[in-house]
């Protein structure tokens, strides 16, 4: 009975990981790709680690597995937000059918100067 649960969790985790890879290849845009790969990859590794915690049935192993799940659930949105914001500011093109671009007027052209440093985000239209 518990073995069937472990099998089911592992198959669900591997399936979500495969869907993440498929979305990463098939989606037309960086931001859609990022949405696919981050969410599905996070739930995939979470299900795999939960299956490992159930399989070993040991307090130390389960505590480390749950800590790893919590760490991944905390850090995957942070890293993808970081990459997405920088990619938008650098000027990665959107998909041609994108309808909403609420980030368009949110930043002045010298946005990164508010951190008190030299503006390092390149102007893609300037002659170098």
């Amino acid at each position, binding site marked *: 009975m518990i*073995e*069937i649960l*472990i*099998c089911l969790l*592992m*198959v669900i*985790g*591997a*399936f979500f*990981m*495969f869907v*993440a*890879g*498929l979305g*990463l*290849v098939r989606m037309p845009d*960086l931001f859609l*790709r*990022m949405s696919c*790969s*981050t969410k599905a*990859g*996070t739930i*995939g*590794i979470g299900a*795999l*680690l939960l*299956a*490992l915690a159930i*399989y*070993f049935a*040991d307090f130390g*192993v389960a505590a*480390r*597995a749950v*800590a*790893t799940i919590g*760490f*991944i659930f905390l*850090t*995957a949105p*942070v*890293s*993808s937000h*970081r*990459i*997405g914001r*920088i*990619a938008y500011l*650098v*000027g*990665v093109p959107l998909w041609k059918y994108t309808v909403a671009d609420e980030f368009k007027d949110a930043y002045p052209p010298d946005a*990164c100067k508010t951190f008190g440093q030299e503006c*390092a*985000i*390149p102007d*893609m239209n300037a002659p*170098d």
Partner: protein
Amino acid sequence: MLQATIQYIVFPLLCGAFTLGFIRLVIGPTLPDRIMAFELVSTSSAGIIVAYAVSSGVPVLLDVASVWAIISFLSVIAFAFYIERWRGEP
């Protein structure tokens, strides 16, 4: 049953995710695409480590997977700082 499931379903799916991540890593038109593909590759390799830990019955491999996840997060953050200070075609 568990061994057969892991060997015939879980490992091929995880290796497929790994391969698709590498395809995007090669053809990705911009640098942030490649960084996201790298993140998926490292996540799926952590998944392969976890599946191998269940398959072989060695719980110490869980420590390897957690350290792997931590290092992949740090490398993605380092790449984000690198893009912030970089000039050129994306």
